[in-house]
């Protein structure tokens, strides 16, 4: 049980790290959004699943209720995070943020 929880939490922290590196290193707004949107959703879901699983180590009614609430957060993140990413992308496209192009010998 503890091993599964540790693996889930470490996976979540790993994907958070990937998303952070992506948001710092990518050259363009849309590429940064790509890194942030996907990695963030996956990492939050993995970490919250690990927490919900660890919370069930003794099986009382209160603990089951708390785990159900964590499950509600997981479902909400699963729906809301892509929606937020989509809204940011649409706002950027309508305002007119230019996508990055690779220039010959130019600046990145």
């Amino acid at each position: 049980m503890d091993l599964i929880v540790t693996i889930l939490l470490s996976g979540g922290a790993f994907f958070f790290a990937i998303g952070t590196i992506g948001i710092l290193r990518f050259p363009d707004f849309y590429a940064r959004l790509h890194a942030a949107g996907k990695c963030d959703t996956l990492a939050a879901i993995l970490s919250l699943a690990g927490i919900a699983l660890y919370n069930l180590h003794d099986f009382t009614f209160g603990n089951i209720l708390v785990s159900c609430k964590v499950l509600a957060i997981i479902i909400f993140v699963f729906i809301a995070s892509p929606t937020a990413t989509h809204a940011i992308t649409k706002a950027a496209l309508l305002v007119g943020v230019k996508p990055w192009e690779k220039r010959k010998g130019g600046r990145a």
Partner: protein
Amino acid sequence: MSSVFLAISSFIILLMIMTLVRVIGGPTVLDRIVGVNMIGAKTTVILLLIGLIYDDMSMFVDIALAYALLNFIATLGACKFFRRSNRVFMEDEVAAEEAS
């Protein structure tokens, strides 16, 4: 098991500080919104980890749920505002963007 939670929390706080670089220095306002959204997702996880460390899950799970909802609404509101105002560069950065 508590040490694992502490280690993961410290690591996520380090990542939050790294994300703050993008929030402070991002070229457009939308970059900053993305960074804040990401910090909010990390905060949700950290609140639940604090609840596990202090053994008071039933209180912190409600705070985390409210924080996730608020994060989503704040992102949508900021996006709608900057889409209406049609201006995503800060005042002093417009000149730099036109010069380049």
